[in-house]
């Protein structure tokens, strides 16, 4: 077994970028692997539902165009997790297409492994019937209807499918939805390092230099994993890791900083120690992994809710500002009355910036006190056309609404744009955020291998030149 394994995390999210100088400094430390997490549920349910990335093609291509050639030259593997942000099939395809384009342009030759993270709805339905799906805190119990309504479901893979791909000798591994630390922890765990330390290191590396101070989501971080500890080191002289910055990062976006559940078990940080080293490095030890008796993975699914149209406007009239609640109630009633013969249903919402648009029901002070308000009128309906109709009608009604004390009779709203209304398209909502029991950690995540050669020009999705049977 190696004494030390070095892992380079170039950026917090693939596509967020990194300074080339930091990356070069990282490569000069001869890492054994480059790993990068591309995913998050933070941007909301839309991206999983629509099958698009929340990062942009050119930005992801820029990052991979630096990472992949450097890794091939250094003969070390690259693992990309939660491809395309949400890690569904179209997200994986999108990332593979970027890699193919880079390979053509730079005439690269390597072995590529792709791991699916999208799961079949029927499999999930069967698992639900078999009682293999359990709840997470604050999430409603799953119903068969929730599964049926889901347009796409992904599962967060653990380290095992990635290890399978590594064992094939793949140079570049692109995985669908992953548990964020898995891309960093797969190789070291396979090499015999402690699971708890490897996953804790992965937890820190997944956000790259966010764990340093000043923090940044677009700069590199290097991890040195040893038998009984690990060290993290920023690769930009402008940043330092401090015990506080690293410990504080353990809090970030987590429910309980001491106990962090993941595929197959829980990372226990109760005995973790953080120690400051010279040159802005931090040493961490004592983190351990407690294996669960049952291997569970997290499912994420979304349903189509409808289509949205919004109208953006401002209000400067103090009389109108004082009457805003009555005006909105009156407009809602007028819309309801006007379309009461129609069979369609809709949802109409008004966000009033300057009152409670940011915190909604959590706002302790929902009073419009400023000299101007921003208003977003939002309609969601089963079709874009109905959403357009409702939004447009609410907008024109609000523009000319007669309220008590009104002195400005020409119009109540200032529109910054013509047209005043915008399609935001399909609206999705989370339908599944639950745990699934799996007998074998790799079963849901088939690995497919393909040889990338300079002459490779097939633009068709998922059609490898030399397919190898799933391993």
């Amino acid at each position, binding site marked *: 077994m190696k004494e030390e394994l070095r892992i380079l995390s170039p950026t917090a999210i693939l596509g967020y970028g990194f300074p080339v100088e930091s990356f070069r400094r990282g490569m000069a430390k001869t890492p054994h692997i480059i790993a990068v997490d591309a995913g998050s*549920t*933070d*941007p*909301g*349910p*839309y991206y999983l539902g629509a099958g698009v990335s929340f990062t942009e093609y050119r930005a992801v291509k820029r990052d991979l165009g630096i990472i992949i050639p450097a890794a091939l030259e250094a003969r070390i593997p690259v693992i990309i997790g939660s491809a395309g942000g949400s890690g569904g099939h179209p997200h994986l395809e999108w990332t593979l297409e970027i890699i193919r384009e880079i390979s053509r342009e730079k005439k690269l030759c390597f072995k590529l492994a792709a791991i699916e993270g999208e799961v079949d709805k029927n499999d999930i339905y069967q698992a639900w019937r078999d009682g293999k799906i359990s709840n*997470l*805190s*604050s*999430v409603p119990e799953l119903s068969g209807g929730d599964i049926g309504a889901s347009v796409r479901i992904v599962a967060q893979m653990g380290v095992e499918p990635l290890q399978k791909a590594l064992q094939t000798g793949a140079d570049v591994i692109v995985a669908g939805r992953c548990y964020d630390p898995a891309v960093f922890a797969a190789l070291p765990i396979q090499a015999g390092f402690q699971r708890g330390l490897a996953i804790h290191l992965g937890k820190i590396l997944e956000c790259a230099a966010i764990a340093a101070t000043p923090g940044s989501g677009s700069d590199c971080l290097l991890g040195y994993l040893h038998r009984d500890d690990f060290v993290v080191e920023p690769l930009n002289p402008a940043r330092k890791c401090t*015990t*506080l910055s690293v*410990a*504080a990062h*353990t*809090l*970030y*976006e*987590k*429910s*309980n*900083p*001491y106990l962090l559940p993941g595929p197959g078990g829980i990372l226990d*940080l109760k005995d*973790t120690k*953080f120690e400051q080293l010279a040159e802005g490095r931090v040493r961490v030890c004592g983190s351990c992994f407690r294996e669960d008796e049952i291997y569970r993975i997290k499912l994420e699914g979304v349903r189509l*809710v409808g289509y949205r149209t919004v109208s953006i406007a401002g209000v400067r009239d103090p009389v109108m500002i004082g009457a805003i609640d009555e005006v909105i109630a009156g407009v809602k009633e007028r819309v309801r009355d006007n379309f009461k013969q129609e069979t369609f249903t809709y*949802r109409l*919402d008004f*966000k009033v910036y300057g009152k409670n*648009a*940011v*915190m*909604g*029901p*959590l*706002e*302790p002070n929902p009073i419009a006190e400023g000299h101007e308000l921003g208003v977003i009128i939002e309609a*969601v309906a089963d079709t874009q056309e109905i959403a357009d109709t409702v939004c447009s009608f609410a907008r024109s009604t609000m523009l000319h609404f007669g309220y008590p004390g009104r002195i400005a009779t020409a119009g109540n709203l200032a529109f910054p744009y013509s047209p005043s209304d915008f399609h935001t398209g399909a*609206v*999705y*909502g*989370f339908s599944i*955020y639950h745990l699934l029991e799996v007998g074998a950690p790799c079963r849901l995540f088939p690995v497919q291998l393909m040889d990338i050669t300079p002459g490779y020009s097939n633009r068709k999705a998922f059609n490898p030149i030399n397919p190898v049977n799933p391993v």
Partner: protein
Amino acid sequence: MKIRLIEAAEVIRSKNSGPYELTLDLIFREGDLFQRVCQQKVFTPDLIASLYGINPQEVVDIIEFFPAKAIKINIRRPIPSGNFGETDVYGAQQHAPLLGLEFWIE
């Protein structure tokens, strides 16, 4: 001694912890004050509920994290992230009621 949280903490932030919960992190500047805040149980579900106008049952967890001199508070989101009626998809601007908090400590 009266303490203003905005002076005692170097970080006060909110973020989603998954699509169904919000997590509020308070990272204190000074270990001694942090210890006293923990010992005297300043942060309770009732306090958080009153700041946010919610039922104390909506406060899922209050956890003291000594390595970072931090208190973590998890509350249920009024609606899951991105559902109809959403105001803050990332949950990143839900910390403001904490900024004005003042409390007594012995």
